[in-house]
């Protein structure tokens, strides 16, 4: 794959992200016409679009799981207690590998970070009994995700968070 082709595909995906709520056909129609390259048939492009949608749904599920307190089980920083994807996901970049077995993605979001108040003391322990004892702050950040597709289903293979 040439850099140019890759770049054009990424551009397509960004635009798709903006038009996510529009009908699939409309989103496809919005893509500028260009010379068809190998792997760029309508079927290929639709398949990639389905991949992007599946990954985007995966991202939303990931955000919900983190917000439900499962950060540690997902292998990300346990201090992250909440993730809200940036509105409409317009800054997201999802890049599907040509073989459609792997993908990478940047998931821009607002992240809630909880830092335990310490050192612990009776008052802090009492606060923890009622779901407190932490300092919460919200920051803008991005998850750099690596996805893998197995048996037709995408999953997150690795997720790395960095503050913006």
């Amino acid at each position, binding site marked *: 794959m040439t850099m140019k082709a890759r770049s054009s595909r990424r551009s397509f995906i960004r635009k798709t992200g903006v038009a996510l709520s529009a009908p699939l056909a409309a989103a496809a129609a919005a893509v500028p016409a260009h010379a068809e390259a190998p792997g760029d048939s309508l079927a290929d492009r639709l398949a990639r679009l389905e991949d992007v949608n599946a990954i985007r749904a995966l991202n939303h599920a990931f955000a919900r799981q983190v917000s439900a307190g499962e950060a540690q089980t997902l292998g990300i920083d346990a201090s992250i207690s909440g993730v809200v994807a940036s509105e409409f996901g317009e800054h997201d970049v999802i890049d599907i590998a040509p073989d459609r077995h792997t993908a990478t993605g940047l998931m821009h979001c607002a992240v809630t970070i909880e830092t335990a108040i310490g050192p612990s003391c009776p008052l802090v322990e009492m606060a923890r009994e009622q779901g*407190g004892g932490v*300092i919460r702050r919200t920051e803008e950040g991005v998850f750099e995700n690596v996805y893998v597709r197995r048996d037709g289903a995408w999953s997150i293979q690795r997720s790395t968070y960095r503050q913006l």
Partner: protein
Amino acid sequence: MHRIKYTKLTPEQITVKLAAAVSGPSSTSPLSNVLAGKSLTIVLDGGPTLRYQFTGSNRVSFAEGDAGAVLTGYGAHTLGHVVLFSHLVPRTQRGYIVVIDQQSALATAFEVWFSGYEDNREVQRQISYGYVEQAGAQAPTARHGITNRIEGKGFYWKQDNGAETIEYYPSVMFSNFVELTRFGGELSFCGPSDYIKIDDNLYIYSRVEAEFSGTMTTYVLDVNRAEQVGVRLGFDDTDTLEYYVFRGRGEWVGQIAQFEPFGDVGTKIALGNRNVPAARGGRPVYRPMKTNPIMTRAQVDAAVAQNKTIFQQSAMAGNKGPISSFLVGRTLTLRYDNATAIEYRFDEIQKLRWRRVAGSPAEASATPSEGGWSEERYESWESAPGVIMFGHLLTGAPDHDAMSIVVDFDNLLVTCLHGTMGTPYIGNEAAVKTLFGVVETEGRTPPKYRRHQFTDELVGRAMTWNYSPGLTSMHLYSTPHSLSWIIFLENGSGGMEWSGPASYVKIRDQLYLAYWLEEACNGTLGTILVNLRTMRNCGVDYSAGPKGLRLGAVGAHARHAGRFDVLKYFRPRSGEA
């Protein structure tokens, strides 16, 4: 109540004790017959439908869901357009407390039961909201519901049976009550509580004396008229069943501040990252005796021998003031009225030496030293010009003693809160004595008669204390001899609460030395010098646990949260012998 050893009643014992109660709750006031002759069907959201046929003022046929009807006793009282009634379910350890608004037909039902928690005597409750079915009428969509609109209020109550209490509602999930007649009104106690709004005047309040008798007190109160009707269900300190309905009258004693965002009326309890326990009737309950390790004296001695933490970083001191150098280079003797006298040399900003000296000035001049010098780490703060608070351990003392001392150098007065570790009940529970005295220092004559004094000027006042980012509690100086502390939920509502013995000493105008003991809890002794002009405190907390002995600094910023007008209820009574 902290010291009563409530019997761990078995389910079988409870069954026997409840047998007589199916005749219905007793009542000092005549029972209401407002329900007599009526049939009611109460539809509860997500709960069983309750069907009643009231055949008199104390007999009812009751059916729950699809179950067959049973005859049982009940008792009812009305408050305005609201009726509250209660009954048990025969041959079970369950019952109901039902509140019906006769104008709106809305109903709230507390299903109550024993033997639902490891302490069988602790009454459990499940609250359901619904309505009374009315022939030909559409089911109402409105419901009663939890609220913070009653948070911050306080009442004095006198039930028709003579029981007097002061009850503070500084939280949306706990409350604070003072048993003026049952236990003499010295201390206040706390219990998990429900607050439900009927309308702007009428609310339902309910508490369970969790960790104590397990008794549940539920009532409807009219906040304008200061009247209540309610029911009390549980076993007292002699294991006698208390099951009665009551009427009561009271006085509104005040309203303290709420700290939720404007517009938040408390339709949800903001529990942060904590899930409500899934068990039926589950709710977060502060159970300090279960979350804090209870140690023997020998265990404490061994832990202290391993480790002492003295003025290390603490979340309780994130907002402490600067450590003072006022004492550095000074030599003085603090002579207390109990004949204890200690000579100090403050060598460095955090290092002092002390030794005991003879108990009276005459003796002191004859025998200047009773012991060698001991060295301690200390911290001190100048809360007001010339008023220094400092704290240190007395190394080698058999009870791991700690001293928390306030010295007024302008007036040469001193007050010491002398902490010792261990009580007859718990090895890692602190005890404290208040020592008044004078400062002897070269070239000045200390007062002979004047001393700092205990005061009740703080009683009824509530103050928030922000110790460090994210860690804020509210003190409610609930009686002249107790203090309760409330932890805020993440939306600023009052949350969990506990209470312990306390005392208050006036140092100067708007400057008070207070202690509180986290008794029947984690055993910590907290001592603070409260400056109402700077709205800051400084102080020392002292505790022991499996990790050893801890003496730490306390420092927080304050805000006024209001005041309850309650002093008159704590004055000595006459004619009750």
